[in-house]
């Protein structure tokens, strides 16, 4: 157990590396895909990956969830949890509004591919 925790301490950067990968993947989906729903899924991944960025540094090895009780003395940092709860709400709110827009676009244009919607339109 102890040894593994030591290892965790040394390799701890791994959390950040995967977080970075997820952020990159989310951004890549948003920018590269033309399908609007896929773009919104990418947007969710982009937003969700931020959760790790906040929560991982708040974790304390050997700590427990920040609910005070007599059995524990070490707790992980509660503040990032609160912030991320808010971020989750913002994420789902954005997704709902985005999907409503996509439904309207589909009704008006008959397609949810950006290539069809934006290039086929006279914007002037």
């Amino acid at each position, binding site marked *: 157990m102890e040894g593994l925790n030591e290892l965790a301490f040394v390799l701890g950067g791994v959390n950040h590396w995967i977080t970075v990968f997820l952020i990159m993947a989310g951004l890549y989906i948003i920018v590269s895909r033309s399908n609007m729903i896929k773009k919104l899924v990418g947007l969710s991944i982009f937003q969700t990956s931020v959760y790790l960025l906040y929560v991982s540094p708040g974790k304390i090895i050997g700590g427990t*969830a920040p*609910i005070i009780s007599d059995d524990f003395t070490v707790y992980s940092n509660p503040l990032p949890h609160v912030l991320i*709860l808010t971020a989750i*709400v913002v994420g789902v709110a954005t997704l*709902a509004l985005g*999907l*409503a827009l996509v*439904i309207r676009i589909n009704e008006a244009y008959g397609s949810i591919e950006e290539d069809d919607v934006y290039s086929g339109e006279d914007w002037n």
Partner: protein
Amino acid sequence: MRGHLILRVVSKILIPFLLMFALYVQFHGDFGPGGGFQAGVIVAAAFVLYALIFGLRAMQKIISPALLEIAVPLGVLIYAGVGVYTWILGGNFLDYNMLDSHDPSHGQHLGVLLVEAGVLLTVSSTMLLIFYTFAGRGR
């Protein structure tokens, strides 16, 4: 899905438990994980399950969209109302210490309960309302 007897029976048993669990999550949020937001989502999920099994129309007979349209702003008003009340009591906005003149920590507890109720109302009704609008769009 309306013909599936097993689904109907199971969901009829399940939904009350879901709602009870939501209430547990709501009121146990001070002591364990949970709170207004989580409970609100669970309440919405229970009703969405009902709508999926018994049909949107049956669900809307129980809770009409018009009712939800009132509930959504009402939750915000409850939350902000606590703030206005603390103003009236002479404190800063959302200063729950004001709610109990003898024991501020009691006031805090009361304030948290009240605002969580507001969150529950807005979140559950908004989620359900969004589901209604999305599901009702197709027909």
